[in-house]
């Protein structure tokens, strides 16, 4: 029963959400809207599960004194601190939670992301070499797109923008569309396998 019940719920929900698309009846629409709100509730529980999993993972690391365990301590303290701030003062503007977010998390995360620019510059200098025909093509395309991203270049030389847009609209699009078809057909096939209970990885025990 422990395995059958989730599979039955999955089968029923999957079939219902597929079939409802073709039945514009008022009752079906109501059930569909209720189902969507249920999905939002389930997604909320996923946040609880994820938080629990994060806490377990880091407590385990702390207990074992694994490598870099001090970072786990910082993570847990930050989680606890933000949690206490959020639950005690709320999340509105002016609260401790909001101040911590805007004045600690935002600068820290922006800095981490900003550091990427330095590594990208260094990496592009060392790795972006015309070693083969393919690499030369990639280099030329990147070169052109970067030039079009320089505001005054696209202003004074509008052909650069035209050419970079052609790159994006023709060769890029051809490849992107192929990838998109593949991704969506794959998603469709996996969805059917999940609904029919062939793919059971989501239950946590593999196939």
């Amino acid at each position: 029963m422990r395995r059958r019940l989730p599979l039955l719920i999955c089968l029923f929900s999957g079939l219902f959400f597929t079939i409802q698309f073709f039945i514009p009846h008022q009752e079906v629409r109501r059930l569909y809207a209720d189902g969507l709100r249920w999905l939002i509730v389930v997604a909320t529980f996923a946040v609880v599960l994820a938080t629990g999993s994060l806490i377990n993972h880091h407590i385990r690391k702390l207990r074992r004194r694994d490598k870099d365990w001090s970072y786990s301590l910082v993570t847990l303290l930050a989680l606890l601190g933000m949690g206490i701030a959020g639950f005690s003062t709320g999340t509105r503007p002016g609260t401790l939670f909001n101040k911590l977010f805007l004045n600690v998390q935002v600068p820290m995360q922006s800095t981490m992301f900003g550091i990427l620019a330095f590594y990208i510059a260094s990496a592009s200098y060392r790795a972006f070499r015309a070693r083969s025909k393919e690499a030369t093509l990639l280099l030329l395309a990147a070169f052109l797109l970067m030039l079009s991203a320089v505001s005054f270049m696209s202003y004074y030389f509008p052909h650069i923008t035209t050419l970079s847009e052609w790159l994006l609209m023709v060769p890029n699009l051809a490849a992107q569309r192929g990838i998109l078809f593949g991704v969506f057909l794959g998603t469709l096939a996996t969805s059917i396998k999940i609904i029919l209970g062939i793919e059971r990885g989501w239950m946590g025990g593999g196939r």
Partner: protein
Amino acid sequence: MNEFFVRLSKIDRRYIFLLVAVSVIVPLLFPFHYPTRVTRHTQAVFDIVDQIPPVSNPILISFEYGPSTMPECHPMAYAILRHAFSRRVRVIGITLSADATGLGEQALSDVAREYGREYGKDYVYLGYKPGVSAVMLSIGEDIKKTFPRDFYGQPTSGIPMLTEVHNYSQIPLVIPLTGSQTATSWLIYAGARYHARVADGVTAVMASELYAFLQTKQLSGLLAGLKGAAEYERLVQQAGYTKNEGKATRGMDALSTMHLVIITFIILGNIGFFLSRRSAKKGERP
């Protein structure tokens, strides 16, 4: 000369870091005011917002960026909000990313204060709701049931601006500002399922993925990265809706200069690579 380029191609990366830092800091301290050409995709977003009648159905802005993608997406939010609020176009703000909750509130309240717009009449902020695609679909059924309360805990059924708003049919434009795959999800769930008009504001790296939807006209317009934000700021300024030079315009000076530095590095690196390869080939000859 050859030796110079070869040595240059093996330069210590700390010098590169220093040059990158200078190329970012100097334009931020002393703006160069580079001219910008507006792309048709940015113009399309501006035109749609510009054609929405004042004090009518609201546009929906979904803030879906965190602090890491904030430098690209936050200026977009400010520019669009300045455009909307200056014309009294109503705005519904939501967020599908927990990270963006505070940022969305900040953008909405800052620009509303700038133009003297009133909460509940001119704009509303419904806050964060987990579930991404379920939320997008649920708004198509009933926005007030999807968000029974706004960010401040007020019941949405009592907000005057939302009285006549039920689903996407009353929302003339949906603008997700995002650095993630949700840009495509909005097209699938809100666009294809409920025929909502969608225009995306995304980070530059995301933009290339969305050209397929621009071509099919499933996407009505696109703000691509900081450049897109700067172009929108320019349009808003040119139309006389604001006198403020936005953050993206200032950021574009730094970004453009840094791009030029990287391009120069790539050229120099390749010259060094070819010269060292030629020397190696010569050395191999008997």
